[in-house]
């Protein structure tokens, strides 16, 4: 076994997942921009016959960015952060190396199959759980492989205590496993076809109606929690202290925020079902717990901001720090906005409107996207052993994307509240003031703005992809690994 001092980490799987993050990011965001413009200019929905309508593409966008882009980013950083904080190398175990590679390839094939089947219209209709049962089985296989790799790596660790980041990755693994299994309980109908030439790609949910809704949003909300939140917090707990050379502000706050988040998050699922037919106490519980959720969310965000105490100057000099601090700030924005929307009377206006996608996107674009890109930027000089290709491109990307995000959520705030208020407006005789179509046509300028915002973000992502590609291929070779601040050419 190698001694601690010469431990050499193996980044082959990290590189594969990094590549997948960029590839699926481009696909997922491109589809997102297309469907955003389809709502502003509906003719765009009919360019590719049945395969190009908003309905077919929307699941492709959500699955592409959540399970293509974000999951790849999570896996890429896991295999990096895992090895380094546990002080073990994948080189030391052939078994774990094979598991990790298999994890990648099965995952990659699943996402490609997801793209094809979703465009063809194979969907269960349950949000973020659209994939049909054969793909669900594949997902279970590689999720288990990830678990084997994770706990195998933990088992081989040289560092006795496991670091905060690893707690968060672990929570992601466990919670998603539970949520995914329960929500995707489905019965393939081909086994009861009774001689009818039925499709093999069809299943129905184990649960009916209100129960199905309950399980779906218990899953749906917490898929957000354990894909878009916890692993990303895991990233910032590792990459921000590393890049800035600062110690995490408070261990106690880390513990409090972690266990608080774990306990509270699952309750909040009920806020997706306010004023629906699920029992009232559950709606109230979902509403109340969403407010409580501010505490652990802000706990870790503040812990990160205070980590920069006394070193705020780095914000001026390093675009990488800028990405991470902006990510943490968007996390705070998004975790105060969510609870506001979960208050019953606010929800009555906000639910079913564009304010909801607006909220989702300040989280995903600002927090998830920025943090994943920052992590990849930090890893690049270490895994490729090259200097980051261009600092000025990073600066440009940062500002283009920040403007894009602001355009996105401000337009959707206005659109959502406008529509919510118009739906409930009455004239002096007690009749509804607006027909439904009035509340659609009024949104045109906001839909256009949102599309432009998305286009900005996509442009920034392409700059990111180019910068990463150039770093890997033609960055200046580094003779030794940088300790903290990542080296970047101007």
């Amino acid at each position, binding site marked *: 076994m190698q001694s601690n001092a010469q431990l050499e980490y193996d980044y082959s799987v990290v590189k594969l997942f990094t590549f997948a993050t960029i590839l699926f990011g481009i696909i997922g965001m491109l589809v997102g921009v297309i469907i955003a413009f389809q709502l502003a200019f*509906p003719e765009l929905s009919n360019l590719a016959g049945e395969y190009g*309508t908003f309905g*077919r593409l929307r699941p492709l966008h959500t699955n592409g960015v959540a399970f293509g882009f974000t999951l790849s980013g999570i896996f890429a950083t896991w295999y990096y952060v895992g090895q380094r904080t546990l002080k073990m190398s994948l080189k030391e175990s052939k078994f774990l190396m094979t598991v990790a590679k298999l994890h990648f390839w099965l995952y990659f094939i699943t996402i490609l199959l997801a793209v094809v089947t979703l465009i063809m219209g194979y969907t269960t209709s349950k949000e973020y759980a659209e994939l049909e049962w054969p793909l669900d089985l594949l997902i279970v296989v590689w999720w288990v492989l990830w678990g084997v790799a994770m*706990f195998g790596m933990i088992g081989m660790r040289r560092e006795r205590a496991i670091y905060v980041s690893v707690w968060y990755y672990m929570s992601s693994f466990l919670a998603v496993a539970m949520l995914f299994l329960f929500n995707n309980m489905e019965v393939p109908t081909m086994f009861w076809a*009774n001689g009818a030439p039925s*499709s093999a790609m069809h299943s129905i949910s184990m649960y009916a109606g209100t129960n199905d809704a309950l399980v779906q949003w218990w899953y749906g909300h917490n898929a957000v929690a354990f894909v878009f939140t916890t692993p990303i917090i895991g990233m910032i707990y590792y990459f921000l202290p590393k890049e800035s050379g600062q110690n995490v502000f408070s261990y106690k706050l880390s513990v409090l925020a972690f266990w608080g988040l774990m306990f509270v998050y699952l309750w909040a699922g009920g806020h997706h079902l306010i004023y629906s037919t699920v029992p009232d106490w559950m709606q109230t519980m979902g509403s109340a717990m969403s407010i409580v959720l501010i505490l652990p969310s802000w706990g870790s965000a503040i812990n990160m901001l205070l980590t920069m105490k006394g070193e705020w100057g780095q914000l001026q000099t390093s675009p990488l720090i800028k990405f991470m601090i902006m990510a943490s700030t968007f996390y705070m924005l998004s975790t105060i906005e969510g609870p506001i929307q979960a208050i019953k009377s606010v929800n009555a206006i906000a639910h079913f409107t564009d304010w909801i996608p607006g909220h989702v996107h300040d989280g995903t674009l600002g927090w998830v996207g920025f943090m994943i890109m920052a992590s990849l930027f930090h890893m690049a000089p270490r895994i490729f052993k090259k200097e980051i290709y261009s600092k000025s491109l990073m600066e440009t990307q940062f500002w283009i994307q920040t403007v894009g995000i602001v355009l996105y959520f401000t337009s959707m705030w206005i659109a959502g509240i406008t529509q919510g208020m118009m739906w409930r407006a009455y004239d002096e005789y007690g009749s509804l003031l607006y027909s439904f179509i009035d509340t659609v046509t009024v949104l045109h300028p906001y839909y256009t703005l949102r599309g432009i915002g998305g286009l900005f973000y996509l442009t920034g992502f392409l700059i990111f992809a180019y910068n990463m590609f150039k770093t890997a291929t033609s960055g200046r070779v580094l003779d030794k690994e940088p300790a903290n601040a990542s080296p970047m050419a101007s």
Partner: protein
Amino acid sequence: MFHWLEQRPFFFAVMLFLTVAFAGFIEIIPDFAKASQPTVGTKPHTVLELAGRQVYIKDSCNACHSQLIRPFKSETDRYGMYSLSGEYAYDRPFLWGSKRTGPDLHRVGNYRTTEWHENHMMSPSDVVPGSIMPKYPHMFKNTADVATAYANANTQKQVFGVPYDKEGMPKLGSWEDAKAQALEDAKKVAADMKNQSVKDAVANGQVPEIVALIAYLNSLK
């Protein structure tokens, strides 16, 4: 305690799982059985309607249309009686949606007709000026998957005990029976339509997607 846990990943993971899973147990289990009782008069969908529901799902109509009327005056004025839990007792999966880019459809069968849907699905903005809904001409050409709809209904009957073939409930029977019944139902819908190729297809024993979809939409009351 936390220091202790952080050095023992197994116990850490167990503790973590219990903490995370707790809310699910409390929230989901108590009301599970109660919520699944059908209201009086709620019937399972016929095979043709299910075929239409599958079209609705295939094209993700639920991405833009809800099927959940909330108990507000502004909603009941616009869409009709607010939704009741029991009305969804046979919905697998549920189709409440989470976004109303278009209007709610839970009771659309009460105020739209076959003729209206036919024109609207072909070109929404000709029927509702300013509409941003895509056109669906392909539904007039594609054939609905009645066989899978039958498998769907039969799975509901065999696995979940949905009362098909009971008195006053839709008939299912064998695949041959169900196919004949679905075609019969399709003819009734097609009789109110004007598109000649759809009429010809139904006369030849085919069920175009649009016919199944309209049968489903008309059943939403």
